[in-house]
């Protein structure tokens, strides 16, 4: 009997030892990764407070969900597109649309040009709808601007800006690679591709893959450009920034970025003028900070995470 007990004791001990060694080996792998495995953007999130020349005031809080498009009309009204509707501030009411607009512009006479992902819908003042055919291909419309003659539509999917007449029809293609004329083509890795009009009426388009802003004549010929790649506050970082921009009345650029969410103003030559909002003023990971500017230089930032249009005014 004693022998049996002894044998079983040994058997259990050996099994326990094997189990113990297994557990030890498993646990012993639980070391931390070394310093070279640290990934931190904290350094780049810090902004010198003296660079921040703007202060935030009360935001606009739309009653729509999923806000995604922003425009300042020539009469100063703010148009916000979201889930199945467009809301106009102040007190302009809410108008239904079929889906979520991806971009929007408003003409002098109140006509709205609404980008619905792959096509443009025109809404007259009386909310009558006209639909322009989609540019086709992989169309993904991300920005619209309108002047007296033309409607410019940025198409991130096809990497083109389409210039339409006010009546629609076949658009002129802007941005096809044309080395002879100095057009390198738009490099758009993700669906962020913004356009705006300069004070002289010429077209500005962001070329996000190059961290560049490019200026074109209405016929698509390039005029000038500037670019700045840097994680530092002076430049743009990541694979596609600035994600949005708008021109100030004096021709300087308000830019918004994704990755390191921040809103800044760059002078006409691209040099940094000041910061409007630093990364710590936004939720981490926010994307789609569309920006717009009114005649007084007030800056509107569509914040999809908070579902608000945040407003920034220059400090006294």
């Amino acid at each position, binding site marked *: *009997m004693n*022998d*049996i007990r002894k*044998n*079983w004791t040994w*058997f259990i001990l050996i099994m326990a030892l094997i189990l113990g060694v297994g557990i030890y*080996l*498993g646990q012993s*792998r*639980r*070391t*931390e*990764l*070394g310093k*070279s*495995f640290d*990934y931190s*953007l904290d350094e*780049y999130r810090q902004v010198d407070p003296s660079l921040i020349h703007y202060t935030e005031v009360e935001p606009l809080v739309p009653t729509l969900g999923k806000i995604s498009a922003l425009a300042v009309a020539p009469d100063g009204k703010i148009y916000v597109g979201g889930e199945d509707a467009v809301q106009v501030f102040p007190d302009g009411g809410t108008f239904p649309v079929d889906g979520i607009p991806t971009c929007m512009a408003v003409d002098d006479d109140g006509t709205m040009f609404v980008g619905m992902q792959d096509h443009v819908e025109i809404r007259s003042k009386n909310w009558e709808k006209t639909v322009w055919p989609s540019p086709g291909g992989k169309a993904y419309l991300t920005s619209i601007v309108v002047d007296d003659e033309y409607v410019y539509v940025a198409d991130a999917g096809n990497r083109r800006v389409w210039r339409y007449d006010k009546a629609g029809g076949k658009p002129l293609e802007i941005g096809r690679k044309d080395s002879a004329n100095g057009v*390198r083509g738009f*490099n*758009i*890795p*993700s669906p962020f591709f913004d356009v705006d009009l300069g004070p002289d009426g010429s077209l500005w388009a962001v070329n996000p*893959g*190059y*961290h560049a802003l490019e200026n074109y004549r209405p016929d698509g010929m390039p005029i000038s450009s500037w670019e700045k*790649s840097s*994680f530092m506050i002076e430049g743009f*970082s*990541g*694979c*596609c920034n600035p994600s949005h921009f708008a021109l100030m009345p004096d021709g300087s650029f308000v830019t918004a970025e*994704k*990755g*390191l969410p921040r809103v800044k103003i760059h002078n006409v030559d691209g040099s940094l003028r000041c910061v409007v909002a630093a990364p710590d003023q936004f939720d981490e*990971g926010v994307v789609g900070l569309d920006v717009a500017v009114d005649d007084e230089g007030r800056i509107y930032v569509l914040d999809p995470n908070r579902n608000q249009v945040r407003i920034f005014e220059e400090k006294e």
Partner: protein
Amino acid sequence: MKPKGKRKRRDFVRGAAAVLVGGVAVSSLRSCSPKLVWQIDPEKCTQCGRCATHCVLAPSAVKCFHSYSICGYCDLCGGYLRPDAKKRNTGAENQLCPTAAITRTFIENPYYQYKIDEDLCIGCGICVEGCDVFGNGSMYLQVKHDLCVNCNECAIAHACPSDAFKRVPASEPYLLKSDREKRIS
């Protein structure tokens, strides 16, 4: 009549064998049920680094996957280049991956292709973080099933702070971000 000592030894050997055979039988019965394997839900993973440190295998059975159909083929790839990279080139000082597991190949101006060398990848997830923050999120972590030994209790699943590990059918062992994507290694 057999000697008593011999019989006791034989009884013990039989008993011990029965315990071992029983264990094997129970585990083989378990393996008859539909086979499940461990996998990472890319939407839940927060790239905490434990996939690299907690796998029972060294290097880990978790590797970076790269989806061509999502990738922007960016020159300035947030998954390839360090945030403080001085230049956009293949210089070791500019690369984010601590094990140099990502190769960069020029395709045509301004596009580059990024490939993961599975032998060098340890599943640390740093590139995934960089790609998520600045790119399209085309890089993500997956348990590689030709390496994983499918532990009953996956040590990483136990340690995962984001509840990103789940059991999936062995017939569909990957949680790919895009149907069109092809695994590159």
